[in-house]
């Protein structure tokens, strides 16, 4: 039985109760303790800075050349927080409820409540760091409303909220580098977790500049390594995002949960060719003014502006009159896919829908629209060479956010003692679907406000255990397995590049375990993945040597993706219901809406690795709802 360690007592008191009882480490003893933090995104930087301020020694790792480049930097839309500055009825409970409902009743009440509870402090924290959030003319903070909710609780810094939040966290991190409490290891990739007596005690990392394999020991390890949406190859994520840190921890005993819950973002730029490497997100805020439609006629080849009003299908407004173009992400994405698959797709590859601003421009004037979105329109023109003031944008759903990740308890600790997972790398808080602007929040709250209590609580028990050094045999063993794998890749004498395998697994997943899934497709996918895995073993071709070599880096990541993809299919296959981002074709209503099954599937699926030759083992963490009633998630 897995223990989620949720504190007793009423929902609103749980976190305070926990904090009051959490064990502390004497300030004089903190300098004797070291924590490895992998990742310098919002979750990693904020956690590393907070623990360093308390006096712990921090070893911080990222694979980019600077911690400021972590993928949190790319988030555009905004970050949610309960401040009720607009006096429009927002409250911690309301945010809690919106998030539980948005996640299709597949997240933990206690975690979600804590997320809402801590949200207000994040705005205070960031403003103190100098994050230039949008302001009203009177000098007070401004905010706006985002998909899936009816109050204004999204704070933003133009279209670069993630960048500004990250720079705040990055600066806090480097401030601690200055004090000597943080040692930065940039261009380092964690390739293995080291366990001693079943506890996380270090990592093996590869120096990406020299190729050197290094050992690092610590009293606890934090993985804040972000999401794995890049498993689909085409996604909104950065090229370097990967699942390796999580996957290698999984193979060492940490459970993975909700792995097949992948959010497809509805407003991305569509794929336009075979050599494309990523899909660019257009901020969802565009849906506040843009109307989404497709031609009513199948295969209509006319230019969008020459299709008359009555021959357009505004399918979101038609199907979801209450929320219309602002329907939540999973619903909007699925509705787009449905139209595209039924032959109504637009654009050169017939893989897009229109996002049309002509009505908004007519009603509000071009100036107003420019003031709100000019940077997005400029970006659109840069990438596509099309002026979206004159012609509707082409948009399409793309793999975006991973609700799944390492299973963690209320303390954000995985099933391996001493191994914590923060931010997008863990499965917590979002359920089967994430509401917009909640992820930056979760990453920050995990690092600034939660881990600084829960990690010391764990460390207090480590003070009197014998110090592990990198001389311990467990390090030698882990290092050997890393070296063996790298050698195997370098000696492989095939003909196919890593990108070939990445693209192949991505396409397979998109078709069989993407926006919609079926038993038959998933079973076929599992068979296909097994044969792709065999092909990877013998057909891979890596050029270069074991020094700086980006092809070698990619090989390890793709090997992990292939294994992860298989687990995603098992996860999707086992869950015989439709919920949030998980749409099983067998479980839908007559109108094509998702049908959840609370009697049989109201639990978190936590998977245990059972070796390469065996299927993974499922552990169930039942979800108990005491404060909300399980309801049908309707946006009609």
């Amino acid at each position, binding site marked *: 039985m897995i223990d989620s360690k949720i504190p007793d007592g009423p929902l609103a008191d749980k976190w305070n109760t926990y904090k009051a009882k959490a064990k502390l480490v004497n300030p004089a003893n903190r300098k004797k303790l070291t924590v490895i933090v992998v990742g310098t995104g919002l979750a990693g930087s904020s956690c590393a800075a907070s623990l360093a301020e308390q006096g712990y020694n921090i070893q911080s790792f990222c694979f980019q050349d600077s911690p*400021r480049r972590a993928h949190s930097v790319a988030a555009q839309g905004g970050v949610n927080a309960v401040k009720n500055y607009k006096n429009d009825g927002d409250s911690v409970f309301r945010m809690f409820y919106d998030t539980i409902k948005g996640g299709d009743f597949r997240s933990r009440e206690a975690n979600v409540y804590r997320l809402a509870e801590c949200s207000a402090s994040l705005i205070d924290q960031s403003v103190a760091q100098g994050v230039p959030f*949008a302001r009203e003319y009177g000098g007070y903070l401004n905010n706006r409303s985002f998909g899936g909710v009816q109050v204004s609780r999204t704070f933003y810094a133009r279209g*670069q909220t993630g960048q*500004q939040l990250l720079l705040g966290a990055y600066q806090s991190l480097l*401030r601690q580098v200055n004090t000597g409490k943080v040692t930065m290891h940039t261009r380092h990739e964690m390739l293995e977790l080291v366990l001693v007596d079943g506890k996380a005690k270090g990592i093996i990392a590869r120096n990406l500049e020299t190729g050197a394999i290094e050992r690092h020991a610590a009293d606890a390890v934090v993985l804040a390594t972000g999401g794995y949406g890049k498993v689909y190859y085409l996604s909104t994520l950065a090229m370097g995002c990967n699942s390796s840190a999580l996957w290698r921890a999984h193979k060492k005993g940490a459970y993975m949960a909700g792995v097949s819950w992948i959010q497809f973002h509805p407003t991305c730029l569509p794929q336009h060719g075979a050599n*494309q*490497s990523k899909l660019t997100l257009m901020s969802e805020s565009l849906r506040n003014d843009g109307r989404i439609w497709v031609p009513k006629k199948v295969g209509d080849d006319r230019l969008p502006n020459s299709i008359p009003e009555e021959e357009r299908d505004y399918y979101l407004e038609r199907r979801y009159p209450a929320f219309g173009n602002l329907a939540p992400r999973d619903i909007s994405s699925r509705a787009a896919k449905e139209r595209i698959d039924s032959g109504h797709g637009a654009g050169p590859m017939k893989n897009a829908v229109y996002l049309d601003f002509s009505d908004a421009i007519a009603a509000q004037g071009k100036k107003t629209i420019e003031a709100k979105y000019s940077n997005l329109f400029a970006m659109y023109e*840069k990438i596509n060479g099309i002026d979206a003031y004159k012609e509707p944008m082409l948009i399409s759903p793309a793999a975006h956010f991973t609700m799944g990740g390492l299973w963690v308890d209320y303390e954000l600790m995985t099933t391996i003692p001493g191994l914590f997972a923060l931010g997008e790398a863990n499965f917590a808080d979002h359920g089967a679907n994430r509401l917009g602007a909640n992820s930056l929040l979760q990453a920050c709250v995990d690092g600034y406000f939660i881990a600084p209590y829960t990690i010391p609580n764990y460390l207090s028990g480590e003070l009197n255990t014998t110090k592990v050094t990198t001389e311990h045999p467990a390090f030698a063993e882990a290092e050997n397995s890393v070296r063996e794998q790298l050698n195997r890749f370098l000696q492989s004498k095939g003909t196919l590049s890593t990108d070939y395998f990445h693209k192949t697994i991505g396409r397979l997943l998109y078709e069989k375990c993407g926006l919609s899934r079926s038993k038959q497709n998933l079973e076929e996918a599992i068979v296909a993945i097994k044969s792709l895995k065999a092909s990877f073993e013998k057909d891979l071709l890596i050029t270069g040597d074991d020094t700086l070599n980006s*092809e070698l880096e990619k090989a390890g990541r793709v090997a992990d993706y292939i294994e992860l993809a298989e687990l995603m299919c098992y996860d999707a296959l086992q869950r015989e219901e439709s919920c949030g981002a998980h749409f099983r074709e067998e479980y839908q209503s007559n109108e094509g809406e998702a049908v959840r099954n609370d009697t049989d599937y109201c639990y978190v699926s936590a998977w245990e690795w059972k070796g390469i030759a065996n299927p993974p083992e499922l552990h169930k963490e039942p979800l108990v709802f005491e404060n909300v009633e399980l309801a049908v998630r309707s946006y009609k």
Partner: protein
Amino acid sequence: MKLYLKIWRQLNATSKGEMVDYEIDGVTEHMSFLEMLDLLNESLIQLKERVIEFDHDCREGICGQCGVMINGRAHGPLKHTTTCQLHMRSFKDGDTIYIEPFRATAFPVVRDLKINRTSFDSIIVAGGYIGASTGQAPEANSIPISYETVEASFDAAACIGCGACVATCKNSSAALFVGAKITHLALLPQGKIEASKRVLTMVDQMDTEGFGACSNTEACEVECPQGISVLSIAKMNYEYNKALIMKK
């Protein structure tokens, strides 16, 4: 389209580099510049050759990790555009393109087109932050900041740390990068108290890292993907002089 590429290849910081000729066919106008390099690398793999190393991550113009000199211009022919956001429609069939790393003493070459920009981080370590500890900040609305101030601060805060300003400057000066951070923080009430200490330590570190001095050529602003204004350099100089006087 078919293109002729001349690309800088260099094994490591200490070895000698050289321009190497490549030909590439089948480039389409929709490809980004980096996708064109991906295509070239795929063909090198098929020839069993080592790929061309270049830096990149987000590929949407925000992480600041990409950046090469293209025909002598940082990030290529377009204004205010990162290399990853440059598309091949800016070139035509039969073009010859020179591709080199950003060059500066403070940015040693790591391999091929990859460079080491840790010197930028070191400048921030020296003082590029507000000394707010985590976890006990006061209510955000307790200090109102005017709309105009926040917008001006934001304009400077938008720097992505790519280094194009340094690469394009004949003195390899980091003044635009440092000026941007100084301006961002000095404008805000939260950053004011530490402003003089910050500017002194950051400017000091900029010199220690081996960046040159600014001679007001203003080439940096032209190539900066974020359009950071050279006025931020003036602001830095103002803050620096003020701090020197106050220090006495």
